[in-house]
């Protein structure tokens, strides 16, 4: 019964968070004086040249279609209802395609990059952090972590700029950006797959180098507090081997708070990936967002923001449900 109530409470919390996020993304644009449709058509009028009277008619018509002439509260209700359906409306710039279409096209790139880099940096960071706090590890092993700690304050984007400069520009080892070489048509061949992979190395490296240090630091702090614990001393006096103590007594216990930290860091990880994608010109969600910002495509901006917020919040709550699997104490309660 207890678990059931906990699950319900966390799910209610999740719904609350999503409601708060959608309310913010609804009301902030409505508070501003900018009118997305008017700006878009004023821009078109400058290049296309139709009469001002027609312009007003078109704008009024579009406002009616988008439901912008209805009372605010009714719009708010409609908006929440469409969010429930994951319907974020149409893109202003690429009109027939919806925001969800754009997200669906770019999402695989972002997920691929994020998945690989997040897992790699979490594993590498925690291992290095645990080793650097482990008094019996050889000195050279413990100092491996130091350069990563020095990089903690450097955001992945700047790491990206530096990597482009040194590896791509100076050494000419890897491409400067883009998803694949200019002039190649995407196709299903090994050559193209290799080309794509090579273009992903630098962005992935930027994200990994930018986030490993954080894990090293928190894992080291955790490791230091665990060392003094009685059960570690007891295990040592029992004569257990160093590897067993390291793996089962030390890493296992230090890992739990790290999973909490992982859940909290999700938002930062996603936002860094978005900005890094923009810098490297990968066709992921970040680049779509950046293009939308440049072209004032408001439905796309708000849709992507809301979509990512919902995803991150859902993942955070989902991670909490994993705790019982990791921690037998929680399972028994």
């Amino acid at each position: 019964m207890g678990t059931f109530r906990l699950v319900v409470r966390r799910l209610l919390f999740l719904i609350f968070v999503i409601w708060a996020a959608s309310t913010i993304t609804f009301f902030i644009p409505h508070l501003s004086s900018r009118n997305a449709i008017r700006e878009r058509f004023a821009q078109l009028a400058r290049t296309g040249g139709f009469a001002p009277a027609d312009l007003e008619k078109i704008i009024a018509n579009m406002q009616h279609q988008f439901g912008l002439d209805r009372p605010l509260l009714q719009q708010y209700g409609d908006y929440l209802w469409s969010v429930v359906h994951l319907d974020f409306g149409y893109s202003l710039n690429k009109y027939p395609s919806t925001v969800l279409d754009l997200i669906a096209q770019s999402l695989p790139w972002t997920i691929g990059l994020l998945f690989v880099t997040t897992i790699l940096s979490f594993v590498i960071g925690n291992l290095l952090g645990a080793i650097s706090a482990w008094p019996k590890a050889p000195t050279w092993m413990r100092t491996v972590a130091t350069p990563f700690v020095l990089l903690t304050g450097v955001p992945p984007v700047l790491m990206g700029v530096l990597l482009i400069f040194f590896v791509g520009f100076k050494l000419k080892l890897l491409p400067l950006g883009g998803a694949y070489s200019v002039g190649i048509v995407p196709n299903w061949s090994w050559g193209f797959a290799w080309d794509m992979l090579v273009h992903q190395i630098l962005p992935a490296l930027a994200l990994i180098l930018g986030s490993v240090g954080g894990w090293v630091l928190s894992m080291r702090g955790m490791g230091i507090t665990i060392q003094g614990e009685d059960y570690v001393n007891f295990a040592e006096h029992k004569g257990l081997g160093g590897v067993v103590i390291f793996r089962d007594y030390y890493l296992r216990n230090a890992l739990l708070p790290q999973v909490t930290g992982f859940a909290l860091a999700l938002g930062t990880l996603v936002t860094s990936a978005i900005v890094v994608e923009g810098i490297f010109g990968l066709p992921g969600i970040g680049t779509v967002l950046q293009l939308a910002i440049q072209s004032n495509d408001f439905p796309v901006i708000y849709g992507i923001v809301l979509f990512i917020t919902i995803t991150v919040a859902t993942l955070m709550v989902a991670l909490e449900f994993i705790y019982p699997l990791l921690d037998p104490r929680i399972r028994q309660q």
Partner: protein
Amino acid sequence: MASIAMTSQAEDRVLQPSQLTLFFRYLRRNKSLAIGLTVLLLLVLFTVFGLIAVNPKHAYPLSAPTKRPPSLEYIFGTDFFGRDLLAAMAVGMWQTAVIGVVAGALGTFIGVVLGFVSAYFGGWIDNIIRGICQILTPIPVLLIQVVVASSLDKRDVTILTMALIVVMLAWMGPTLVIRAQVLTMKERQFVSVAKLSGVSDLGIIFKEILPNLLPFIAAAFVGQVFGAVFASFYLAVLGLGPLREPLLGNIIWAAQGQGAFFNGWWWWPIEPAVAMILILGSLALIIMGLDELANPRVRKSE
């Protein structure tokens, strides 16, 4: 803080090192604080002397020949739009500092006030403040800032509005930290003694609790400055900054937009990137150092 009565003779004999010497002695032990402060000081010196030496007008487009690599005449080179990058860097660092300090001070102030109110009065006020913090925590702050910044009219985006956008969703961290500290401090004996001897609520807050919180407030402030610089940098890199200003993130955004690396203009994006790394790196080191100062338990483990 009671002063111990001493005879004037004894006072003469005890040679107290001055505050400054004590500070330097502490810095020798706290390496990360020392390095962080040194780098930050050098950056401040660069900015101040840069602002004196160069004409700030050269930080704006069409004031210099375009696309010159670093040379004796233009030490940092010039960019595609005809900005002298030395001037642009000095002005950009100054603007970054303004955003950081304004947003940092505001965020810390809001956090301290809310944290105090929440912890000291408790009850439903505490529940509301804590609830808002909890609900806002899972929402990626940068994305909400993107919504705010993109909803603004381009003319309304200035250095000051950047600071306000950044601070709008950044007060939760300090609120929770200060709240937790006040909660533990409220139960300490010196507070109970003060309460029993009839000191008012405000008296307890300002005379008893606040002085003990200063290290935490200082750490929260530096953390807020770091967060504000970081967030405004991300917004600017996404093209949401005040586009006319030579803010460091704006320079990188413009350089990427013109394909600086593809065209061989490497100095253009590299210079603001290095400056930003130095700023964020020194702030991160100072945060680590202050952590050690405020939290002696970390010190023990070194």
